[in-house]
């Protein structure tokens, strides 16, 4: 065990090395680039015995690692934003093929206009693809989650690819102390690669040719069932990781002062840290806030969330993405999960396009919603837009719209 000062991206690279990945293929995109750079360096220095395929696009990057994984190798890629959108068709193909794979997604907003700063629009765009999707809060968790992703993906009860989300720049380019586990311990903890089938002349397997519609339907159901089983696997992996490496994150949801909270914030990603800080400060003035940090948006931790949230006075969801024409995607998940219990709900949409959201912003939003709850007794505010500072008034926003939009 060595503690190193690592950026989130380097934490990914170290995890990939520890997992003894055999084939890496990726196309550089800000803010993912330093993952590809670090892995290239590790491979060229002989620290990681893997083949690096330096492809011409993200579409090819995922197709290449999918091909490699189908051929029996442990494979890895990483991307962000437009790169993720460009590979979207292969994202579906890989999951539908039930081939274990791991991909890091360094969250970044989607243009136009060009913007390299974080929001979660790119990650939430992948919700329905059949990938397990985890989102880390800080750099240590980035390393741990990436390592765990291989074990989850290659578990025979799951056999689905896994995305590990980390916020662009806030994690990807910011150093923090990261405990890098010993290779021996990782080798012991992470079993050799398992997968449902290997394409080779020895197996004579054909994958992906036309199937009857009914069979295709059942394949979808089988993926859904695997997702349901993955919930248990993720919890198990979290526990066994803790036994060996001493760190547990609570599995599907990390609960921060949830138990005695009256007000529960539901959130995912790096800004959860600011939400936790806000919760502490609000507690000091008598507003009992807890934070349920969703670590996996797929499979959606329905049962766990019900346990934690159903009896709260108010559940406030913070979304760093929006389904334009509907609501925040995390809010949609939470509200449909809590529907039978009639829990008071609010959905805050904030931090889009990398607009900074400070702990004070969290405090303000939470205070406002709590006072509305006190006025009304019960609350349902599906979209509460936390506009950037200075643009709170409609008049101001119209001014911008006339000029720019």
């Amino acid at each position, binding site marked *: 065990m060595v503690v190193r000062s690592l950026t989130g991206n380097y934490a990914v690279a170290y995890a990939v090395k520890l997992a003894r990945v055999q084939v890496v293929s990726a196309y550089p995109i800000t803010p993912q680039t330093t993952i590809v750079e670090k892995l290239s360096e590790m491979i060229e220095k002989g620290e990681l015995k893997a083949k690096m395929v330096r492809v*011409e696009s993200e579409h090819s990057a995922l197709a290449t690692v999918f091909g490699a994984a189908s*051929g029996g190798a442990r494979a890895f890629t990483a991307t962000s934003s437009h790169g993720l959108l460009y590979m979207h068709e292969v994202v579906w193909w890989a999951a539908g093929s039930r081939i274990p794979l791991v991909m890091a997604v360094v969250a970044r907003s989607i243009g136009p206009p060009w913007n390299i700063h974080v929001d979660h629009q790119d990650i939430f765009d992948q919700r329905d693809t059949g990938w397990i999707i985890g989102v880390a809060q800080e750099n240590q968790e980035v390393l741990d989650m990436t390592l765990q992703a291989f074990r989850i993906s290659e578990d025979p009860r799951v056999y689905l690819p896994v995305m590990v989300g980390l916020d662009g720049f806030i994690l990807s380019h910011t150093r923090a102390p990261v405990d890098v586990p010993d290779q021996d311990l990782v080798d012991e903890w992470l079993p050799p690669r398992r997968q449902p089938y290997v394409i080779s002349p020895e197996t004579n397997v054909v994958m992906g040719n036309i*199937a009857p519609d009914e069979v295709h339907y059942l394949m979808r159901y089988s993926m859904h069932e695997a997702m349901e089983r993955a919930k248990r696997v993720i919890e198990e992996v979290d526990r066994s990781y803790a036994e060996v490496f001493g760190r547990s994150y609570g599995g599907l949801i990390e609960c921060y002062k949830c138990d005695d909270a009256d007000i529960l914030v539901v959130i995912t990603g790096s800004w959860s840290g600011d939400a936790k800080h806000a919760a502490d400060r609000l507690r000091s003035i008598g507003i009992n806030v807890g934070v349920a940090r969703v670590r996996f948006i797929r499979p959606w931790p329905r049962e766990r969330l019900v346990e934690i949230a159903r009896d709260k006075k108010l559940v406030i969801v913070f979304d760093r993405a929006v389904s334009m024409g509907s609501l925040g995607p995390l809010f949609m998940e939470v509200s449909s999960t809590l529907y039978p219990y009639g829990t008071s709900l609010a959905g805050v949409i904030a931090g889009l396009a990398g607009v900074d959201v400070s702990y004070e912003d969290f405090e303000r939003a939470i205070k406002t919603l709590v006072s509305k709850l006190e006025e009304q007794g019960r609350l349902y505010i599906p979209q509460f837009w936390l506009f950037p500072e200075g643009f709170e008034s409609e008049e101001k926003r119209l001014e911008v719209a006339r000029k720019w939009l």
Partner: protein
Amino acid sequence: MAVNLKALPDKKYIMPGNASCPGCPESMGLRYVKMALGDNVVLVIPAGCSSVIQGIAPRSGINTPILNIVFAAGASAASGLKAAYEMLGKDYHVVVWAGDGGTGDIGFQALSGAAERDEDIIYICVDNEAYMNTGIQRSSLTPYGAWTTTTWTGKKEHKKNVPIILVSHGVKYVATATVGYPTDFIEKLRRASKIKGFRYIHLLAPCPVGWRFDPSLTARIGQLAVKTGLYPLFEYVNGKFRLSPIGRRYKDPKNRLPIIEYLKLQGRYKHLLDKPEEIKKIEEYIENTWHLIDALEKSFSKGGGEKIYKAL
């Protein structure tokens, strides 16, 4: 080394229950691929007719392992598969079997990338000169004048010359072939299989449905493409360019059959048979093609290729 017909395997590679149309050049070509390379082969097939020809899962009408993949990813998925085999110490041939769309249009970027990286794969473009699987729409490899369901009065542009583009990538091996001359195709496949690095074979595949001809004529039309000089057969090996023995004589215009012999058998050219100015454009295209071939032959006469021919 010339192919001995008697020594070719008798094994059945294209099975009953495959979904190809009568006279399909793709099922012919797939058979030749397996006859040439044997069982140490994995096919990567991006979207196209051959995705369908395999038949309905869990069975397959083609007796070979296949990784089916999305349209634009033939060359990239094959690169990954080969990388895995390398890491696992397995020596399998990875062969991409892609149509003209999957090669020259939607799959072009991945193809160019894999060629530039000199991936150790064999890439076969089975060129039926239009998007046949979706119902005969033009591609960049549809020839001038041909009717398709998106060029009702005939295509106005000439065919993209993909094999020459691959030559300019500086890959190890480029060849043209047609299902009309199976032994030539098999010989080229076998030669390619002994070379390491990126290998490209362009296989002209006359399609009875899309080209509008009788299904019994597939091979004959492939031969006519060569005999009229429309489709030169060549090989480019490690910097050495040479015309294939079977088609070399058609470099001389005197030895060529008139192009009308090729055009008149195909319904897709019906509308221009009585338009001499249109026929002339196709004849000019043939002349230009041979100018290019001649230039390549001269430019690449001193590559390291000759040694390889002897060794093989």
